[in-house]
């Protein structure tokens, strides 16, 4: 079993009101020195079976058509091996 992580971010030139709200809140809370914040989404997909090229292609497809709105968002796909749990 493996974990595939899909990170979705607004494209750099698209306005990010949420990120801006976080950025504006930081100095109020005493955290200085952060000039910009952009907020994204992270999806962790637990995949049955081996993560081979065809599995990745499927994940790419589902990310493109469902997880991300590619008109305004970019996404990246990366594989994370899950450590076998003890006792299994």
């Amino acid at each position, binding site marked *: 079993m493996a974990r595939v992580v899909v990170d979705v971010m*607004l*494209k*750099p*030139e*698209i*306005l*990010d*009101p949420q990120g*801006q*709200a976080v950025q*504006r809140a930081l100095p109020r809370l005493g955290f200085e020195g952060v000039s910009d914040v952009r907020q994204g989404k992270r999806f962790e997909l637990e995949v049955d079976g081996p993560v081979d090229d065809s599995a990745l292609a499927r994940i790419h497809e589902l990310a493109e058509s469902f997880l991300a*709105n590619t*008109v*305004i968002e970019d996404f990246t796909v990366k594989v994370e091996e899950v450590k076998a749990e003890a006792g299994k």
Partner: protein
Amino acid sequence: MSRTPLDTVEHAAATPDVELPWAELGLKKDEYERVVEILGRRPTGAELAMYSVMWSEHCSYKSSKVHLRQFGEKAPESDALLVGIGENAGVVDVGHGYAVTFKVESHNHPSYVEPYQGAATGVGGIVRDIIAMGARPVAVVDPLRFGAADHPDTKRVLPGVVAGIGGYGNCLGLPNIGGEVVFDSCYQGNPLVNAGAIGVMRHEDIHLAKASGAGNKVILYGARTGGDGIGGASILASETFDDAKPSKRPAVQVGDPFQEKLLIECTLEAFQEKLVVGIQDLGAAGLSCATSELASNGSGGMRVTLDDVPLRDSTLSPEEILMSESQERMCAVVEPEKVDRFLEICDKWDVIATVIGEVTDGDRLEIYWHGGKIVDVDPRTVAHDGPVYERPYARPSWQDELQADDANKLPRPSSADELKDQVLKLVASPNQASKSWITSQYDHFVQGNTVLAQPEDSGMIRVDEESGLGVAIATDGNGRYAKLDPYAGAQLALAEAYRNVATTGAKPLAVSDCLNFGSPEDPAVMWQFAEAVRGLADACQQLGTPVTGGNVSLYNQTGEVAIHPTPVVAVLGVIDDVARRTPVAFQEEGQLLYLLGDTREEFGGSAWSQVVHDHLGGLPPQVDLERERLLAEILISASRDGMIDSAHDLSDGGLIQAVVESALLGGKGARLVVPDGLDAFTFLLSESAGRAVVAVPRSEEVRFNDMCGARGLPVTRVGVVDGDSVEVQGEFTLTLEELRKAHEETIPALLA
């Protein structure tokens, strides 16, 4: 990184042979040559950016201008009109010192690309037009048109659009009180997302978009400027002037309703303290539009330092800054001694505000970047003297054939059972079905002044709590009628909106329109447009309701196929006391149902012909504007004097559709009797214009009949409010339960 030298005015004059990407920016060869002629040299990149966006169809109305003039030339005398066409929005006097501003605009293309943000920023844009007039926005309306209800792409576009409108409008705290939702396969690749807004102010608070008084400061305030919505400019900036720039920028703009809310409050507070000489919102064409329009409407020139514009993305080129359509920005002209106070107010509301220039005593618009002068133009040539086209137009060859394909000759139901089935099918069809699944996603009652909202005939807002003074607005348009006859179709759109306003008890005062058509380069489309404008201008003249402003959206087509010509008309009305309004819902059993107006065999473009026969042909219903005016007067008087308890205008779907809606909303049935001289089918389903059905308490029967008789309005008793079914005597009975299921389950089943 090697940079090409800054393309200043001086540089442009010295390098006349540099090729500019005018064609990629959408300019025609002769338009580009005209720019060169105006300037007496080649334009700089920044100047070219400004001319190209301001001379685009969207901003310059170059194809439609010659026709739109009729709205001014034929404008009826109206004491109510305070500000007419040409400003951000028209303003109408509604009495008691109050003025109301309203306007409808399109956001069709962006909403197809990115439904949520496209629709959301459509709401944001129209609301800023209202603020720019000095008014507090009080309500929005959204006339929407999508492809076939069961098409998969409709399921992509519609929920996004609806969520976007709700998301933005609800966050702003503005009630959504009206609009329409129409499905037709002609809008499949080109949905129409029109947005309207209403604002209220005192007469003395009206503000205009002009920059006067040399030395006055130009302040840009609101959101930072980013790379949003830069269409053609990316080509200009990234490929020609600086190859090292990030690749293309998206045309999608993302809105931030909370920023817009701050902008509303901050602007109104500045108005309150009389700090503002002139104001303009930044919409299409962004700073190019705001600076050139403010300067050309004022007395002097303007000097702007583009380096002072607060940026979200420091890599933007000056051309991109000028063309950016970043949302939630406004531009104000403020006297120097009031600048500090203005900035203080912006700071209080957490709104970024920057002095970016000043009004000069010259007549040039000059823009500087890194110390170099990159724009030096007569602002009028940018904002007002764009190209004007007398595009060829011709009645399409298929028009005769379409009109000859008479819907009155379609097979009609041959038995009572068949009629019943067709009625049930009609009220369940996507266009006639309840839209509450959509409209319930919008906030209707926030702010506490909403008197009527969908599915009433018009939305109504209380303006003055003491007197009960209110305004009503209705938007209507029927692309099927307009396809059959664009002249009559536009008049029918106006007649229906006018009737809808009067049905709720308000007096129609003024009109705004959103004219959605295909490509103006197609003579057939141009003919449709010319006919629709002529029809609307003639009808406005006759009804005494001037057009105060609006918007034209062209190129609504997929490949060679244009949408139905779709003039959407908004009518604004005033009511002295909103407590006197007339609702759609039946109120009390035993009340008598009267049909006002004449019913003829008119099925061309009807809902019946679409639902039962999938047919479009023949002629739309006959237009009789004097009758519309008389009907409106009767409905208003009857409402004011308490002679009717409910009323519903008759339009698509005819009488049965109206009665079913009133019955379902009131939870009370009706018994209908087919009047003498009419067959049941025509009685129930014809779409003759100039009609309404009203419920009259028995105590008012004589008085109401006398009034109609004295004024010469045909009135026919057609039934009574009664029971828990809709019964057409001698024909069929449908229980409210059956009808409710049919009417209310369609839309959620298709889209939820």
